[in-house]
């Protein structure tokens, strides 16, 4: 596309004939010319009225006494049109002599100025010279107005063209977003289907390797048993991973359902601890629980919260040091994470804040936000060392946010990390 930029628009603005009211304010005209008009504030000569007519000959502005020569004109008189081609460009009418001059803005004639003088004035021989002088002043006013007009037209054109460009960009972005959404949906569907299809054969692998390992299909020697157990363990690991991916895609598709019920946090923690007890023992990490007595029940899906806790606890074990511990605490707190500004007071503590603290390697400050992104790992090499797909915390966040809570982390490298999450307190029937 060519020829539609702001410069072209401004050029075309310059080609148009600007209306005179956009070039000159009546006030400015009156103020500038009053000193030259006798009987108003006039100090120079006998000119007793000056009038400006637009390019169609309609009176635009008049300076002179109320009963002056042109005070009751609203149109440029035919006599003025007639004298325009004569060398003097002046005519007599009644007791007055009139001089007529054209005025321009840019290349266009935008109006006509008429000067009047009593026919018997001694200034009459100078009328042409005075008219030429004053038309120069008016011309300068008009040119200044014209420059402003072109500039403002250019600004207008530029903003219009920017606006159009932005609109176009917006439309493109909207198209791109809807395309991405579609693709994202397809990805989630694909993940759901694939992980479902993967689980079916995996069940057989796990089932049959377990039978082999237990010797149901006949006795195995020690080495064969070890192989079968390895197949079984790896199979289960794979199953967990696939289950996580399936869950993630379910959440992204929005098909996850929460069975909300008032639940006691202590029970959920206990179940999570028993699920994590074996890996904790293996890593020589102690599991500790410090709950205030009489904690209010939380409104949650107990299975999902247990899953959150298991995820957080196994992370805390995974990145802990031998001899370290994982500590779970809970207290009443606002449902939102703490905010720096508290001038207007504390928020209502209508939630439980559950904290999982470890004595592990810690997470650098700049990574603390990103760890909740799917497939993100603080250090890619830690994937090899510690395993996992980087989905755990992302699932945790989705589950907690589905409950209306928030999850965040604090950490000191080398000392340990604390994960906090909030859950709403169940309303007590009164």
């Amino acid at each position, binding site marked *: 596309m060519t020829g539609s930029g702001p410069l072209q628009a401004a050029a075309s603005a310059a080609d148009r004939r600007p209306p005179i009211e956009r070039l000159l304010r009546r006030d400015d005209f009156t103020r500038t010319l009053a000193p030259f008009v006798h009987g108003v504030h006039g100090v120079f000569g006998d000119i007793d009225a000056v009038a400006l007519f637009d390019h169609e000959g309609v009176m635009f502005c008049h300076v002179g006494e109320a009963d002056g020569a042109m005070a009751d004109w609203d149109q440029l008189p035919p006599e003025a049109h007639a004298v325009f081609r004569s060398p003097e460009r002046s005519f007599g009418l009644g007791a007055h002599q009139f001089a007529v001059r054209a005025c321009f803005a840019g290349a266009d004639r935008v109006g006509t100025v008429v000067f009047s003088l009593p026919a018997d004035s001694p200034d009459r021989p100078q009328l042409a010279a005075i008219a030429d002088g004053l038309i120069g002043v008016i011309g300068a006013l008009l040119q200044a107005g014209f420059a402003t007009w072109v500039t403002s037209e250019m600004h207008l054109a530029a903003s219009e063209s920017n606006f159009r460009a932005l609109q176009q960009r917006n439309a493109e972005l909207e198209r791109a977003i809807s395309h991405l959404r579609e693709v994202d949906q397809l990805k989630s569907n694909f993940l759901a289907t694939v992980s479902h299809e993967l689980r079916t054969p995996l069940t057989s692998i796990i089932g049959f390797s377990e039978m082999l390992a237990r010797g149901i299909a006949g006795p195995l020697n020690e080495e064969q048993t070890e192989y079968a157990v390895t197949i079984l363990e790896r199979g289960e690991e794979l199953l967990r991973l696939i289950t996580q991916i399936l869950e993630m895609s379910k959440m992204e598709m929005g098909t996850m359902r929460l069975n909300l019920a008032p639940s006691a946090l202590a029970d959920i923690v206990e179940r999570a601890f028993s699920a994590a007890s074996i890996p904790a023992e293996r890593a020589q990490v102690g599991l500790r629980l410090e709950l205030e007595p009489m904690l209010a029940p939380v409104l949650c899906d107990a299975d999902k919260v247990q899953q959150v806790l298991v995820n957080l606890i196994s992370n805390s074990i995974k990145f802990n040091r031998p001899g370290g511990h994982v500590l779970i605490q809970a207290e009443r707190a606002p449902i939102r994470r703490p*905010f720096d*500004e*508290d*001038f207007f*007071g504390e928020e*209502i503590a209508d939630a439980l804040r559950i904290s999982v603290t470890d004595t592990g390697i810690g997470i650098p400050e700049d990574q603390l936000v990103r760890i909740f992104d799917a497939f993100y790992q603080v250090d890619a090499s830690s994937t090899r060392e510690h395993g996992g797909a980087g989905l755990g915390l992302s699932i945790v966040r989705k589950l907690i946010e589905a409950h209306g809570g928030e999850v965040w982390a604090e950490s000191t490298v080398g000392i340990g990390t604390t994960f906090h999450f909030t859950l709403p307190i169940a309303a007590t029937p009164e």
Partner: protein
Amino acid sequence: MVYIDIQHREVTLKLVYYGPALSGKTTNLQQLHQLMVGHTDSDLITLDTRDDRTLFFDLLPLQFQTEGGFTIRLKLFTVPGQVIHNTTRKIVLQGADGVAFIADSRVLQTRGNNESFANLKQNLRENGLDFEDIALVIQFNKRDLEGIRSDAEVDKIAKKGREPVFKAVALAGQGVRETFRGLAALSWKRLEGKFNFAERFGVRHEDFMNQIDGLFRPERGNP
């Protein structure tokens, strides 16, 4: 910052009503405009369009002459409270002489108030204005609703800062005048300290405040 035109003996002050979304900033200005009928020729310029939310700002220009023949112009602005309109907020805040922070008294809105207050501090800083230096008053609005901070709690909060605190029901016009008066007085005091209006232009603080009070209709003025 204040605009002083010595040649035309004119001082222009910019006062901004700030606060979280739906706390009643526009209502404050509308009520002021109502209360001043007959004393201000200018209309309240409101740019609220979609859903009656302020998208850009509202502007109430006021003007009066002091005894010494000095013209004082006050420009009252609101900002859009919605979090996403921060750019607009920052622009409106540019060069402000005084800020009235309109807080929602409901306890549930505490977070919104705190976030908006932090946002005010940050935007002042980014505009090169000093939070400690600006004339700031605080209004606890919506005192007629359920679930609000008690008067005792508000008083306790008020003691934490040195900002004057006002209680209001802007929809009913209560406290609107007092807040504006407080804001005008404090803004003038700050500027007086800086520019010495009394000595340089013969505009005294009482004179200024008398004119402010004169803006309100007597029959609806004092509670």
